[in-house]
């Protein structure tokens, strides 16, 4: 395994450094070409997202000077860049890539975007021929591992933003959000974001009330909704299933008696109040009413924190999967490393056998078919017996660290000219290649 990876990410480098290395999508193909033209690099690709820039390569001898490539390509001083770089080789590079694809190295562990970004980087590099055999195998495996992590752990299953938690809770109350009405009280940025999330999940009409009516109109227009005068709030609020409130009022604007009125007018159909105001807009006693659910900013943040903790727990399970997959990948690669030598050895001995038979055939005179078969069987038997020990040794050495040494010894003993192994594995399926999200 002559894989080598270099890069920086949100943990190793501040934004100022990351943005100097960021490669626009349009320049990725050229960068991949430059990379493969760099001395010592057989195949290479670049992953560039807002949180990371990484170069993954398969090298001729496992020791390409990737730092030099970065310095040259980005015209950066070593002193400015090197302290933020990490570099992995062989097994460690494989592990790192598997972790990246499975979103274990992301800022928000478990987020789904990174896999799509890696797939897109892979597709770009493959399109320009920068990824062929070795990296093809590595990335195909990385995508399969990421899929396994997603299906066998819950690392990406829970929401980790306030807006998405609000949507999740609304779904636990209403099932589908299709046709549910949303009321925004107080035209703040946070409530706009939450409303946008809810609308994206199919909510129906939107109403906006604000003390400054013009601002209500402005926000309502963004959602193709309806602006409501603040004094009409209590008469219209029951039309909404979900209320997002974030006014700057110094006291609660929704109290128990309002809740009772709303429920009575709604025939007790549930209402969900998302209160992101500080101080709170919804009085705590309103949440005690049957059918009214209130979540304030602390409740939502607590839910987010709980989900993050859950993800961390799941990430531990995911790490175990990655570790076992790295071992499997390494074992498979090692086996593949000795295959060309075995094939070459078989070819070599078969050539000798054929040459010897041809050489003595004239001296043996005319042979009957039975005699021909006997000679074939005899010579093949000898060759097989001679090959048995070296092949067994090669196969068992493939699983050990001494594989390279044994391969070299066998090559020298038999004077083998091993062709580079045929590396044309099945490319990743087209539908596995995602799009940048």
């Amino acid at each position: 395994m002559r894989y080598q990876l270099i890069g920086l990410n949100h943990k190793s480098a501040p934004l100022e450094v990351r943005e100097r290395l960021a490669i626009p999508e349009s320049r990725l193909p050229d960068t991949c070409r430059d990379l493969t033209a760099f001395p010592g690099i057989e195949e290479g690709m670049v992953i560039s997202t807002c949180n990371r820039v990484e170069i993954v390569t398969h090298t001729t001898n496992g020791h390409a000077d990737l730092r030099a490539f970065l310095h040259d390509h980005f015209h950066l001083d070593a002193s400015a860049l090197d302290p933020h770089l990490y570099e992995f080789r062989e097994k460690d590079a494989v592990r790192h890539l598997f972790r990246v694809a499975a979103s274990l190295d992301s800022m928000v562990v478990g987020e789904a975007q990174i896999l799509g970004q890696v797939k897109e980087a892979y597709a770009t590099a493959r399109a320009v021929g920068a990824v062929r055999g070795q990296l093809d195998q590595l990335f195909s495996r990385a995508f399969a591992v990421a899929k396994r992590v997603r299906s066998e752990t819950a690392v990406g299953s829970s929401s980790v933003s306030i807006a998405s938690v609000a949507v999740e809770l609304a779904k636990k109350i209403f099932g589908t959000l299709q046709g549910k009405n949303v009321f925004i009280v107080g035209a703040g940025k946070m409530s706009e974001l939450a409303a946008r999330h809810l609308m994206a999940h199919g909510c129906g009409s939107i109403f906006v009330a604000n003390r400054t009516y013009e601002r209500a109109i402005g926000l309502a227009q963004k959602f193709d909704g309806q602006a409501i005068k603040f004094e009409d709030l209590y008469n219209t609020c029951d039309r909404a299933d979900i209320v997002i409130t974030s006014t700057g009022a110094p006291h609660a604007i929704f109290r128990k008696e309002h809740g009772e009125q709303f429920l009575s007018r709604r025939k007790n159909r549930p209402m969900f109040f998302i209160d992101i105001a500080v101080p709170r807009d919804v009085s705590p006693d309103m949440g005690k009413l049957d059918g009214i659910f209130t979540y304030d900013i602390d409740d939502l943040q607590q839910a987010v924190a709980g989900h993050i903790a859950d993800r961390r727990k799941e990430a531990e399970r995911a790490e175990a999967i990655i570790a076992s997959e790295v071992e499997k990948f390494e074992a498979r690669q090692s086996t593949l490393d000795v295959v060309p030598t075995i094939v070459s050895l078989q070819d070599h001995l078969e050539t000798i056998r054929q040459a010897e038979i041809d050489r003595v055939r004239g001296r043996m005179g005319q042979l009957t078919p039975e005699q021909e078969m006997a000679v074939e069987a005899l010579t093949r038997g000898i060759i097989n017996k001679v090959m048995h020990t070296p092949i067994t040794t090669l196969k068992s050495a493939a699983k050990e660290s001494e594989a390279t040494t044994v391969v070299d010894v066998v090559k020298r003993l038999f004077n083998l000219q091993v062709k580079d192994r045929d590396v044309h594995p099945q490319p990743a399926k087209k539908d596995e290649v995602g799009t940048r999200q």
Partner: protein
Amino acid sequence: MPLLWLRFALGCYFIGLVYAFVALSRTSDLFSRIAFHAASMGMVFHFVSLTETFLSGQIVWASVHNGESLLAFLSMTFFMVIYVLYKTTSPGVVVFPVVFFLTFVAALDEQPVLLTAFVSHKGWLIAHIILIFTGYAALILSFGASLLYLIQERRLKAKKPTSLIGFLPALEVIDQIGYRSLLLGFPFMTLGLLTGSVVAITTPTIGRVDFLDPKILLSVLMWAVYMVMVFTRWNSGWRGRRAAILASFAFVAALAAWAANYFSAMHRFGTS
């Protein structure tokens, strides 16, 4: 043979029973699938048992054991319909224990207990039993849904999301299950009671409907609670705690009405 099939069904329902208890503390998709398939298998055995009983002419419509078996089967049918419509096994938390209990009693190797009075109009009796049991099955489902609603509502209000929140369907879905069961069950229950009255009037040894008889009194009470549930839901949209209290009351009244079979002068059971 019918008893043997019923016991196979009981074995399958036992898995559902275990699931019902486990699901309250922790959830597992795999276990949910196993329980669902076991319950489906149980229904097949149960159906074979009922069919064999019917085809062999051994069916005694007024037998308590046959009644329990039929009620269990109808409850499972409702459960399956809900599964097809809403893709949730969560009503099983309530339905499976009830079905297991009914099937267990029905599968006991005892002489069936029979209605002692001689019934002259068998058709009315069959209609009465099927209608009233369908009403009971719907009531069980509605009761189960109101309990699940209450649990889910409490969990959401506690603001400490647990795995149970994920296991149970959304509040409005549970509400729909309960309300639809209620609406479906009410006409069956009403018609069941009416056909029961016809049976009573046309049976020579009874000949009338005595509203002071414990069975009749409790059945009417149960029906009245049922009606109040439908009305309050339709008129004021009662859900949650109040609906659960009413549903529990109706369920207890139904149990009491069932138990009254042993005390009623008109609807009396005795050993054959």
